[in-house]
C-alpha cells in the first residue's frame, strides 16, 4: 500500500527504517504509538480487560464475595469497607458483580464482532470477487437487512426466543454482518482492478491465491478499524438491551442489567452509588475503544493524516 510515504521531517531512524522497507504493520504501529489519546485508550482498555478476566481471583482475594453470593443482612447497603460500592437489592456485592459483569459484556462484544467480521469477509469477498448475479443477490439481501433497525429487531427476536446471552449475540450478528460485508466488497471492487492483481492473474494464479494472498490482506486495515469501532457500538447495544430487561438475564450480571437497578425510583434518586459505577464502566470502555479505533484509522491510513 501507499503506507511507505515518507513523513514530512524524516529522522535518521525513519530513513534507515524505510530503506529496510519494513512491513506495513511496523509503520502502522509506529504511527499509532505517537498518538497519545490512542495509547491511553489502549492502556485503559487493557487494564479493564485484565481486571474483568481475572474477576474471580481478584474478588475472592480482596473482598471475598462470590458473583451471586448475597448477604441477607445487607440489602441495598451503603458503600463500606465490606462492600466498597454497597450491595444491590438482593444483598449482592456490587463491585464484585461489576467486575464479573464486564466479563459478560466484553465477551458478548468480542464474540459478536469476530463473527460479524468473519461472516462479512466471506460474504463481501464472494460478492466482490465474483460480481454479477451473485453480487447482486447478496447486496440486495444486505439492503434488506440494513433496513431493519437494530433495537426493534433485537426486541422481536427476544420476544420470540427469550432473553439470553446466546439470543442477544444472535440478534447482534443477524443485524451486524452487512456492514463489514459492504466494506469488504467495496475493497474488492477497487482492489481487483489494480495492476498487481491483474499481473497475478496473468501469471496464472488461481482465484484462491488472488483472494487470500493479494486482495484480502489489503482489505484488512479498514476492516480492523470498523471492527474496533463496532465493538463500541455492540457494548452500547448490549447495555441498552440488558437494561430494558431484554438482554442478559439476572443472576448473570452485565453492565447493562446492573443499571436496571436504577428502574427503582428510590435507587435512582437516593442511591446513585448503585447505578452510576456500571454506567461509568461502559462509558470508560467505549471511550477507550473509540480512541483506539480513531488511532488505528489514523495509523493505518496515512492519507487521512493531516
Amino acid at each position, binding site marked *: 500500500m501507499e503506507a511507505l510515504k515518507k513523513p514530512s521531517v524524516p529522522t535518521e531512524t525513519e530513513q534507515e527504517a524505510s530503506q529496510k522497507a519494513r512491513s506495513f504493520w511496523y509503520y502502522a504501529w509506529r504511527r499509532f504509538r505517537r498518538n497519545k489519546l490512542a495509547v491511553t485508550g489502549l492502556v485503559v482498555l487493557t487494564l479493564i480487560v485484565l481486571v474483568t478476566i481475572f474477576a474471580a481471583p481478584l474478588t475472592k482475594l480482596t473482598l471475598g464475595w462470590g458473583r451471586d453470593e448475597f448477604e441477607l443482612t445487607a440489602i441495598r447497603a451503603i458503600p463500606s469497607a465490606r462492600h466498597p460500592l454497597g450491595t444491590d437489592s438482593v444483598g449482592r456485592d456490587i463491585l464484585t458483580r461489576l467486575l464479573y459483569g464486564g466479563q459478560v459484556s466484553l465477551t458478548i462484544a468480542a464474540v459478536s464482532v469476530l463473527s460479524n467480521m468473519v461472516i462479512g469477509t466471506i460474504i463481501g469477498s464472494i460478492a466482490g470477487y465474483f460480481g454479477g448475479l451473485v453480487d447482486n443477490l447478496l447486496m*440486495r439481501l444486505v439492503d*434488506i437487512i440494513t*433496513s431493519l*433497525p437494530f*433495537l*426493534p429487531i433485537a426486541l422481536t427476536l427476544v420476544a*420470540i426466543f427469550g432473553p439470553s446471552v446466546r439470543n442477544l449475540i444472535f440478534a447482534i450478528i443477524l443485524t451486524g454482518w452487512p456492514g463489514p460485508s459492504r466494506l469488504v466488497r467495496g475493497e474488492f471492487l477497487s482492489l481487483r482492478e489494480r495492476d498487481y492483481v491483474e499481473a497475478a492473474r496473468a501469471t496464472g494464479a488461481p482465484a484462491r491465491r488472488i483472494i487470500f494472498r493479494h486482495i484480502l490482506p489489503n482489505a484488512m486495515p479498514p476492516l480492523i478499524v470498523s471492527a474496533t469501532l463496532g465493538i463500541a457500538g455492540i457494548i452500547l447495544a448490549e447495555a441498552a438491551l440488558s437494561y430494558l430487561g431484554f438482554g442478559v438475564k439476572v443472576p448473570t450480571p452485565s453492565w447493562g442489567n446492573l443499571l436496571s437497578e436504577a428502574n427503582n425510583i428510590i435507587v435512582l434518586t437516593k442511591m446513585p452509588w448503585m447505578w452510576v459505577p456500571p*454506567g461509568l464502566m*461502559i*462509558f470508560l470502555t467505549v471511550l477507550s475503544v473509540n480512541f483506539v479505533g480513531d488511532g488505528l484509522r489514523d495509523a493505518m491510513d496515512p492519507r487521512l493524516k493531516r
Partner: protein
Amino acid sequence: MRQYILRRLLQMIPILIGVSILMFAVIKATPGDPFSYLAGPRVNKATIDRMKAAAGLDKPLPLQYVNWVKQTVQGNLGYSLRTGEEVTSLLKKRIPNTLILTMTAFVIGVGLAIPIGVISATRPYSLVDYTATTFAFMGISLPSFFTALVAIFFFAYTLRWVPPNQMTTPGEAFNIWDMLHHLILPAIVLGLREIAAFSRYTRASMMETMRQDYIRTARSKGVGERIVIYKHAFRNSLIPIVTLLGFSLPDLFGGAVIFETLFTWPGMGQLTVEAVNNRDFPLLMVTNMFFALLVVVGNLMADVLYVIVDPRIRYS
C-alpha cells in the same frame, strides 16, 4: 429529477417486501400460536382449530403472507392481541408523539452541531476545538440511557426543573406549554448524540473544504475571511452533511425506543416494547415495519438531498 425520485421510490418496494417477508418468517417461527395462548388450556382443540381457520391461520405460510400484504395495503393492519384495539388507531395516537420527540431532538442536535463544527474547523487545534472534540468523544461513548438516567436524577429529582416522565401532567387538560415542559429533557438528551456525531462530521467536512484550491483562490483575491468561510467553504461543506442527516434517522428512532420507555413517552418506541412484553405479534409486525420504513425513507432522503444540493452529481 422527477424521474430519479420516482425510480428511487420504486426501488423501495422490493426492499420493503424483503423486510416484511423476513419479519413475517421470524414472527411465524414463534413456538405455539396466538390462539392457544389466548384461549388457554381449557378450550378444546376443535374450537381453536375453528378460530384459526376463521383467521386464515390454517393456510400455508406463503398464502398467509399474501393475505397479510393484501390486508395491509388496504389499510387494515389488524388488531392488538392484548387490548383488541385496532392497530391503525394505535398508530394514529403514537406516531405523532414519536415524531414530536425525535424531530425536536434532531433540530436541537443538528442546530447546535453545525455551528460547533464550523467553529472547531475554523480554529483547528485551539482550546475551543479541543473542548468540542473531547465533548464529542464523550457524547458518542456515553450509553444514551445512562445519560438519560443521570439527567433525570439531576434535572428532574435534584433540581426539580422538569418532570421526570410522561408527556403531559396527568389529570390536566392538554396545553402546549405543559407538553414542552415534559418534552425538553428527553429531547435534549436524545439530541446529545446527534450533537456529538454531527459536530465531528461538520468539522471534518469543513477542514476538507478549506483545503480546496478555490478557497485559496478566494483568499488570494482578497475576499474577506468571513465571506470565505461562510459563503465559499461552509456551503460546500454542507454537501456530505446533508447526506448523513438522512442516515441519522434510524439512529434517532432507535434511540426513541429506549427514551420513550425511560421517560414513559407514549410513542412508537414504547408501543414496541409493550408489544414485545405482551408477545403481541400482529402489533409487533406493524411497529417493526414502521421502523423499517423510516430507515428506507431516510436512505431515500439522503440520496435525493445529495442530488439536490450537489449539481455535480448526475442522477442517471
